């Protein structure tokens, strides 16, 4: 266990070494949120609320969705793909740890770094600039934290899956790009799921993506009733378990594939 915790620490320190980069990152996110702020203001016009969300809730939704993204987002799919292409993965597999577990921990180290140096200052900046409603209810924060942890796990699991694909395709950069686009849309980062037409909502209900962004953001903006909230957390939990299965299966097949290639 201690080696996994060491991995979190190492990655955190590595990110710290490049922290200057993250000041520009905060600006990027703020600008992005700003663009959506103006766009949504124009969309709302003089409407009081759309699909149960007021303009203030919508602004908060956009802000928290992007700030949460800083925590759950990572590039481990690209890292895995690179290591497979370079053949480095052969050495990694000899080491006394679970390769995918180690990558997950690296992602977590990155996430924790971004959370403290990026999301929190970013959120403060955004709150000063736009009308963002911060909940003052301890329970909301608690549920949000649990939900955010699930969203990290689900997103990481999907990244592991796309990363492992590099064992089977010569080049999976296109796949990784397509995955990112799909996650941005279906997770509710760009648009709350409740804004979609009903048939699309029905389809998305059977996909793991809304556990990544929609659920934590709705919890933060108090857009869920209590029973909806518990259902949503349960749904996230179930996806975390279900996604373990394809990862394990692909990983077993992938390791065999690697031997054929000769490493």
């Amino acid at each position: 266990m201690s080696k996994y915790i060491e991995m979190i620490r190492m990655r955190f320190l590595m990110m710290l070494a490049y922290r200057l980069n993250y000041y520009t990152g905060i600006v990027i996110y703020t600008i992005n949120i700003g663009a959506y702020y103006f766009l949504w203001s124009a969309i709302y016009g003089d409407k009081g609320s759309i699909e149960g969300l007021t303009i203030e809730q919508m602004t908060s939704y956009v802000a928290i969705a992007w700030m949460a993204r800083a925590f759950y987002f990572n590039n481990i799919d690209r890292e895995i793909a690179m290591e497979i292409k370079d053949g480095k993965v052969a050495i990694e597999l000899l080491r006394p740890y679970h390769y995918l577990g180690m990558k997950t921990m690296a992602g977590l180290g990155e996430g924790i770094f971004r959370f403290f140096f990026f999301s929190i200052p970013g959120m403060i900046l955004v709150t000063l600039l736009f009308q963002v409603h911060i909940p003052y209810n301890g329970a909301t924060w608690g549920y949000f934290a649990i939900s955010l942890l699930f969203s990290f796990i689900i997103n990481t699991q999907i990244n592991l899956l796309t990363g492992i694909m590099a064992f089977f395709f010569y080049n999976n950069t296109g796949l990784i790009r397509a995955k990112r686009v799909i996650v941005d849309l279906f997770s509710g980062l760009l648009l709350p799921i409740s804004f979609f037409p009903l048939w699309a909502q029905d389809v998305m209900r059977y996909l793991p993506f809304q556990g990544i962004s929609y659920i934590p953001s709705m919890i933060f903006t108090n857009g869920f009733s209590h029973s909806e909230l518990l259902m949503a957390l349960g749904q996230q939990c179930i996806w975390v378990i279900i996604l373990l299965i394809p990862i394990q299966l692909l990983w077993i097949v992938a390791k065999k594939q690697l031997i054929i290639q000769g490493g």
Partner: protein
Amino acid sequence: MFYIGIFFQYVSQYMKTRLEYRSDFIVEILSDLFNQAVNLVFILVVFGHTQFLNGWNRDEIIFIYGFFLIPYALFSAFFNIWDFNDRYIVKGEMDRILTRPIHSLFQVVIERMELESLFGLVTGFIIIFYAGANLGLELTWYDPILFVLFAIGGALAYASVFIVIASVGFWSDSKTSIMPMMYNIGNYGRYPVDIYNKVIRFMLTWVLPFAFVGVYPASYFLGKEEWYIFSFLTPVVGLVFFTVSVMIWNQGIKKYRGAGN
């Protein structure tokens, strides 16, 4: 002439390498298509809840998006320089470029081009014709000429911003992440600029001229007369900004001292 010859040689080399890995080529086009589809879905879903965006209707917004895709495709096919700093300055590739007898920027551009992005032209035209038909827009004989001028002007305006940022690398060789930021700001130009506040509008017009990539030129074809002046400025702005950016690049080259290994 010399430059055109070199350009086509690079294109043919490019096609050879790309067709070697055909599946990759197709996946890349598909992921671009996905991206465009997501942006369209966004517009469609939004207009499921509202009739107008500051007086612009759904098909007008779709038309602007379709137009935006065309200069954007030209830009991303030829100015794929978002990792210039990392690739050419930090890793010292620039030294190799400077030993060649052609202009350094031209060399970088043809080395890094990504012709599959041109597929965006096809989606752009499909979207424009779809939205145009819905709006009942009429074509005159000079519209295609203006269209080409506006599209090239928009692509040059877009490119100039990225050339300037790439040039910053000549003065400071540390890694920066301004490039992705610019891609996000570029998206501002896809929506009617009158929804933003005055400061952003001014920025998008005269500092980072992204409004000339989407909304301004598209306004002409939509018959929005109040924006005509800006529409017709598109090629001018494109040329002026591009010239200035190349001048900044040339200044940067003089400053460049190599990665020092």
